């Protein structure tokens, strides 16, 4: 008996196997190699890998009680493999998308041509919670707003890849991409000789290049800092990891102060100027003088320094207007408008509940659809029609009627699956993919990204807060 002899794709799209159960060309070598492992070896290595994660403290906080419950982000040892041709297409599509989104955000906070030309209704943009009036007329350094994006991609049952959402706020997960690769190299060194895999370990270098580029026209040796909400934040490991890998200071709001028109950090030798701030806190918390006055995470006066051009903020405040799920539905039109191109990677088809026809359709077909709030993420504030009770559907019907602008609906996609080690055998589980895109001197896409797996049987929710895990993602250098 081999490891995969019992594996069943259940008629769904599987990333590794075709519907007749034979391995796809790019993974054939991998499947053969795994089938040659001795019985029990896979589990043994899986346990070793998980303990290594705990020891290294690669954990996220589930909730902060006295003990501060920390969990490892579950890691599955079988890599997800992406063929070179498919990746070339994904990379092209993401670059196109980020290029257009940046033009859109800049337009929204300046002339609003796209609204005046009637491509997107005014009220859709101006009613977004994430549209910040305080950012009107701002010119971020180098004209870039969305420096870091973690776009979520999913593959439907017919094999087509769609964009689910863009995550322009503070997308997290990239540290797991780098750590997963290192863990794989430690656990299965023998698998790496078989393929030419595009590296991911240089992400921190690309990130630092981008951060320094933003102010390199006016500062010779820019001082970069990474702003974290602190050790109880669920993504604290990532903040610490990125700061360590880039060799920049990891700061909290209390380390920072605005003085003489510049941002400074408190050091043992006095105050030191900061030129670039990669902030991992949301817009609302950045500056209590301008946004949420209760915020202890940010720095009073920060926005004044930013407006005066003496500081680069990553991402630029206000960027998230393009993350609103209703605005997101217009991305095909946005790309057409600014670039005069057709969208390469399509959006998941979206019904906008504020439009009468769409809303009527949604209300009648709610049990087939996925309903999402316009400004929620992390798997919160959503309804998966086919997996919900009548009462839950009824609840969402009421909510949609009360505030149609706040809801969109999408068909329930049958997300593709990958084999995952469950106890002592492999089972199919649904996945998505979050590639990371950096916009600096040019647009860079990290090869692969974070493959998130819904570990619960049949579940379509891959978020770590909802029981998701991850896999190493290999983008091959040569086509098969």
């Amino acid at each position, binding site marked *: 008996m081999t490891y995969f002899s019992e594996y069943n794709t259940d008629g769904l799209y599987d990333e590794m196997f075709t519907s007749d159960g034979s391995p796809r060309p790019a993974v054939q070598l991998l499947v053969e190699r795994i089938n040659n492992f001795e019985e029990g070896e896979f589990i043994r290595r899986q346990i070793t890998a998980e303990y290594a994660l705990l020891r290294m403290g690669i954990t996220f906080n589930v909730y902060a009680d006295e003990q501060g419950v920390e969990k490892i982000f579950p890691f599955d040892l079988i890599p997800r493999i992406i063929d070179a041709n498919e990746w070339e297409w994904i990379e092209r599509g993401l670059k196109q998308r980020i290029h257009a989104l940046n033009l859109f955000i800049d337009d929204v906070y300046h002339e609003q041509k796209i609204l005046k030309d009637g491509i997107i209704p005014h009220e859709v943009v101006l009613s977004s919670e994430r549209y910040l009036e305080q950012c009107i007329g701002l010119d971020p350094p180098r004209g870039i707003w969305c420096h870091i994006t973690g776009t979520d991609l999913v593959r439907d049952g017919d094999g087509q890849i769609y964009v689910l959402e863009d995550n322009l706020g503070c997308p997290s997960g990239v540290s797991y991409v780098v750590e997963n690769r290192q863990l794989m190299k430690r656990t299965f060194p023998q698998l790496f000789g078989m393929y030419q895999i595009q590296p991911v370990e240089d992400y921190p270098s690309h990130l630092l290049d981008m951060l320094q580029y933003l102010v390199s026209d006016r500062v010779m040796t820019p001082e970069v800092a990474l702003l974290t909400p602190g*050790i109880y934040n669920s993504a*604290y490991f990532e903040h610490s*990891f990125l700061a360590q890998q880039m060799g920049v200071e990891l700061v909290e709001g*209390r380390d920072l102060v605005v003085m003489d028109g510049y941002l400074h950090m408190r*050091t043992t030798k006095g105050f030191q100027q900061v030129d670039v701030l990669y902030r991992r806190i949301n817009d609302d918390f950045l500056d209590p003088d301008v946004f949420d006055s209760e915020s202890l995470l940010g720095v009073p006066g920060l926005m004044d320094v930013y407006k005066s051009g003496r500081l680069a903020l990553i991402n630029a405040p206000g960027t998230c207007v393009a993350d609103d799920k209703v605005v997101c539905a217009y991305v095909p039109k946005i790309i057409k408008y600014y670039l005069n191109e057709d969208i390469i990677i399509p959006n998941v088809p979206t019904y906008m509940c504020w439009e009468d026809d769409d809303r009527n359709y949604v209300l009648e077909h709610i049990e087939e659809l996925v309903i999402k709030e316009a400004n929620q993420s992390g798997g919160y504030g959503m309804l998966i029609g086919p997996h919900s009770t009548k009462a839950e559907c009824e609840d969402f019907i009421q909510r949609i009627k009360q505030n149609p602008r706040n809801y969109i609906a999408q068909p329930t996609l049958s997300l593709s699956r990958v084999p995952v080690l469950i106890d002592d055998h492999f089972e199919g589980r649904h996945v998505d993919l979050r590639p990371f895109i950096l916009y600096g001197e040019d647009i860079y896409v990290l090869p692969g990204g974070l493959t998130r797996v819904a570990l619960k049987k049949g579940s379509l929710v891959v978020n770590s807060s909802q029981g998701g895990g991850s896999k190493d993602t290999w983008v091959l250098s040569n086509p098969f």
Partner: protein
Amino acid sequence: MLSRVAESIYWMSRYIERAENVARFVDVNLQLLLDQPAGIQAQWDPLVATTGDDALFSDKYGEPTHETVIKFLTFDTENPNSIISCLRAARENARSIRENISSEMWEQINDTYLMVTETPEEWTMTEPHQFFTDIKIASQLFIGQTDNIMSHSEGWHFCQLGRLIERADKTSRIVDVKYFILLPSVVDVDTSYDDIQWGALLHSASAFEMYRRTHGMILPNSVVHFLLLDRDFPRSVLYCLKNAEESLHAISGTPIETFSNPAEQGLGQLHSEFAYAQVDQILNTGLHEFLDAFQTKLNLVGEDIYKTFFALRPVDRISTVSQSQMQ
């Protein structure tokens, strides 16, 4: 270096040292009890007194017993100076500065904490020696890594400063409490029991063998001299003060014997006091008074370190940000 980072390094180091000291003197006292003549009431009070948390203890447990004292000093999360609380505080501090220390140092602290949380509490009663030895070894491993992996620059000096100030404080407390307990027992003078008790005091500071090589016979005055005034023994108060002073000056860049801030002034004065002290004079004027005054001055140095390096304030915005770590 960020003020907050410097403060966390300083406290990470202090808490590790504190956990080690608690483990050491609990272990020694447990063994000492095995040698106690029958009929003599076991002395649990001094153990609690050494940590300075007597009030908290009596509020919670009343009269000290074997079980309650051990529980209080090892696994009681409500006691901020129990071993588990110290390790947790050290780990939290380390976690907030992971990008500044090496991964090995972080993993060592994380490992130690995980080891203690996975240890069944009853082991402190059934296999106490192994438990306390594990804690001591873990602390020594951490110190070794700090010395051999971390650059001996500003961060390392804050590490040294924290560890040595903590150690000076704990050694002085061990001497204070034990001397107070031991001296009045006139009946025992020159008996083998007396010898064992003074030996236990040395063991509490891991000083027994080194003392033997230096002084031979176990005499109260020599023991006090060794633990307070020895120039070469790394756990004596004088040694700690001298090396803490060197690190403090390495941080500020001010030459030794001059000072640029109150912390340097205070620590320099303390160091001189010990460097030129004589054990007979100390005993004549009263050891307890001498040590009490020392602890107060050392606390002041700690406060001055906080004000000088950790609590930097801009002129126009005064806010009260302070880390409420335990002195």
